[in-house]
């Protein structure tokens, strides 16, 4: 059944080639590889253990679909590893305030498109296709999974055949919201024009899209394999290197790891979510493949509930006007933070940097937004004695059962997360630390499907628990993450059917002020300072306890494969046109 053979050549690839964007503001590292010619290489074998089922980023149900579509459908621009846009797509340059592409008030963005680009069927690409894609995404009946990226857009207009103007309702600091990364993949108007709205799901183009990317679909068995061949109309005459691509789905993470590290059956294996103590020896012993990871803004953290989740409150349970009996006490939160051993967690469970590293910050990327003030904070250090002292000072006294209490309130914590072997071990480590400071911890775990929904009382949104744990990722601009996560106006509660993002029910005037300023500020350096201030506020006041900066991508590639340059903000396939052997 699975008869993938490897077309390997002996030499080791060491250089990492990337795109060389012409007018990109990004300082993207681009050590140029030896010039390649189109179709020089043979078949590129990619293994995704979750098989793709649809080849349209806007209808994608998962990363695997969006990644498989990325070989065909291109956005205007991509995110590079530093979180800067790169013009390797349909835009000829990246609009900035400096070059006049972005208005000074951050409301309009003017995209200049490449000229002479052709779709794979030979027809000409134009600004109309971009406008059409916006209309397609905007129609709620199209039910696109990328709809967040057209929120708050007033209009997308074609000024001429090669210029598109995006206008936002109000100043938008994240002005690359539309058009960059997979969520901005441009569809051909001629192919999808009749399939806007309810018919969007039935479009034949979802399985055989006509694109501008380096490859076209030759054969696609949904839920199994995609075969690609070179797009004869691709704009760069020397690319892509590989003549064909086999994008194989199926199996599980462990078998994928074996295929790239042990048998060498594939050139690329995606998302190797295997325990560190299994993955590490396998990749180190491999002669054919190597593991690569990329860090972004994926943070595993503990969230404290500021409202009271006591079921006795009935309808008032965990509503923002209730007050948590002990987590509203800063001393308790500080003690819990100090008794959390994130270092051990990173070392033992995440293989000391293999798939994650410890962090006290919420914002860990892009580099200029990362706070350097938190490392020295006492709440970022594991110190049981200091945690005990903190609680002693605050009047929480240990009872006969070893549990601290004050005024009849016992420090009993219900701590919930998803069902996941790794997370349950994290829970064990946290519980062991908290037990030493006289906090009684009750662990709970629910399936991810139940946890990440606004309809379940066991879900993260309802937060009918004292502490919960999961991972958050953000865009290169963290404004939305910060505002929706801890802003007063975004408190999840019954009246908004728990659809807002502030699950912690945190409300603080100082923090709201930082966010309000951040939304208005247009100066890059001042924005960075505000993001850092917001990060420090959350860490210092122990609104959250950040644990691990998890790798955004953890994949394996053949040692001979060159040009792979994963970015934490975009598809792993974002620069597949530049891959070679």
């Amino acid at each position, binding site marked *: 059944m699975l008869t993938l053979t490897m077309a390997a050549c002996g030499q080791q690839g060491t250089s990492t080639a990337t795109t060389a964007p012409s007018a990109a503001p990004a300082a993207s590292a681009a050590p140029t590889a030896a010039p390649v010619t189109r179709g020089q290489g043979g078949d590129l074998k990619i293994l995704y253990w979750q098989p793709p089922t649809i080849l349209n980023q806007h209808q994608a149900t998962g990363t695997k679909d969006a990644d498989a579509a990325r070989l065909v459908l291109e956005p205007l621009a991509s995110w590079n590893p530093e979180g800067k846009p790169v013009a390797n797509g349909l835009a000829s340059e990246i609009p900035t305030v400096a070059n006049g592409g972005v208005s000074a008030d951050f409301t309009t963005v003017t995209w200049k498109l490449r000229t002479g680009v052709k779709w794979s069927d030979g027809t000409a690409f134009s600004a109309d296709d971009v406008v059409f894609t916006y209309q397609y995404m905007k129609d709620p009946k199209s039910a696109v999974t990328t709809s967040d990226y057209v929120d708050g857009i007033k209009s997308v207009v074609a000024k001429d055949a090669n210029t598109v103007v995006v206008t936002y309702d109000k100043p938008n600091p994240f002005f690359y919201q539309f058009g960059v990364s997979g969520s901005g993949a441009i569809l051909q108007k001629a192919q999808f024009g009749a399939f806007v709205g309810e018919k969007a799901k039935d479009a034949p183009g979802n399985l055989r899209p006509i694109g501008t990317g380096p490859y076209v679909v030759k054969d696609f068995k949904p839920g199994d394999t995609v075969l690609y061949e070179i797009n004869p109309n691709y704009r760069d005459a020397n690319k892509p290197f590989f003549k064909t691509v086999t994008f194989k789905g199926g199996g599980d993470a462990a078998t994928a790891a074996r295929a790239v590290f042990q048998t060498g059956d594939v050139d690329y294996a995606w998302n190797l979510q295997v325990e560190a*103590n299994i993955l590490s020896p396998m990749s180190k012993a491999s002669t054919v493949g190597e593991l690569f990871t990329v860090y972004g803004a994926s943070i595993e953290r503990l969230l404290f509930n500021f409202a009271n989740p006591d079921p006795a409150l009935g309808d008032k349970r965990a509503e923002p006007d209730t007050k948590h009996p002990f987590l509203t006490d800063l001393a308790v939160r500080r003690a819990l933070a100090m008794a959390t051993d994130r270092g051990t967690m990173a070392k033992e469970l995440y293989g000391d940097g293999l798939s994650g590293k410890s962090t006290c910050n919420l914002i860990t990327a892009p580099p200029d937004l990362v706070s350097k003030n938190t490392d020295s904070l006492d709440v970022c250090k594991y110190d049981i004695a200091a945690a005990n002292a903190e609680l002693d000072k605050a009047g929480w006294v240990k009872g006969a059962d070893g549990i601290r209490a004050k005024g009849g309130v016992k420090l009993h914590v219900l701590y919930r997360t998803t069902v996941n*072997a790794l997370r349950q*071990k994290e829970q064990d480590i946290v519980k062991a630390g908290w037990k030493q400071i006289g906090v009684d911890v009750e662990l709970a775990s629910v399936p991810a499907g139940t946890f990440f929904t606004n309809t379940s009382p066991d879900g993260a949104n309802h937060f009918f628990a004292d502490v919960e744990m999961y991972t958050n990722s953000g865009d290169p601009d963290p404004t939305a993450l910060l505002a929706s996560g801890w802003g007063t106006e975004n408190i999840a509660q019954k009246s908004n059917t728990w659809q807002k993002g502030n699950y912690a029910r945190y409300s603080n005037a100082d923090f709201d002020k930082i966010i309000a300023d951040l939304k208005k500020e247009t100066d890059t350096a001042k924005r960075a300072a505000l993001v850092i201030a917001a990060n420090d506020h959350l860490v210092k006041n122990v609104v959250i306890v950040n644990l691990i900066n998890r790798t955004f991508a953890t994949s394996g590639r053949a040692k001979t494969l060159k040009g792979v340059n994963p970015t934490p903000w975009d598809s792993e396939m974002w620069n597949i046109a530049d891959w070679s052997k």
Partner: protein
Amino acid sequence: MAAPATQLSGPAALSAFSRPARSLWGDAWHQFRRHRLAMAGLVSLIFLVVATLLGPYVWTVSTSEIDFTQSLLGPGFAHPFGTDDLGRDLLARAMSGGRVSIAVGVSAVLLAITLGTTIGSLAGYFGKLDNPLMRLTDVFLSLPVLPLLLVIIYLFKDTLRQLFGAEAGVFIMIVSVIGILNWMPVARLVRASFLSLKQKEFVEAARAIGDPDMRIIIKHILPNVLSPVLVAATIGVGNAILTESTLSFLGLGFPPDVPTWGRLLFDAQNYLDFAPHWALFPGLCIFVTVLSINFIGDGLRDALDPRKSS
């Protein structure tokens, strides 16, 4: 007089005069002791129960203390069952897990058998109740288990947690859920046996001397139905232990840090390559428990079969 006596032949009845009176259970125990495998099963089950109950007082190592310097050690002096990847002692965890697993298995099956026998005997004995009760059985058999579990847990989890605490609440819930979803096969078995037995002469005789229905059911027919029920029960215990681990996996069972045998197995599955001891010991515990109970059931069936008594 006990039911099987109605079937005793003449000489056996005569000899009763010369010996002390024999009861059904006395006879059964006499028979049972002669069944070697059953005795072996009984001994090992008693050993397991005693070990899980009293073991933690002898082997006082903590079940939850994390020590990464001791992680994934094979069996040795300090840790007879080895350790898991967080360096916790597996012997201590297996003993404390055994309490929960055995308790869940046995109580859930007791509940299932009680329900099944009651419903099956009523359906089998009273013709009028047969149809409605058997249709009820069909309804329960056709219930989709997972959605039902979700509903039950959604409805009662918080209430039980408040009333009995996290662990006891979950225990009651799991035992009832497993019990309530497993009585149907027992009910069908019991009903079928009742249908054939109620036509037998000894039942007619009992009716002829004026025994009320309940007495006939309990004293005369039920002892003859025990053997299929016991067999079903012994199989059920193993099933219940495994069902508990499935529930834990779905996040519907005990809190994840309560080490039941099923949970230990589940945690160990990815480490079979290089730490087989982790899965081996809890697996062995489940295996020995289920096997012992099966042998005991076997012995009991032989001992209680009136046709086999000497």
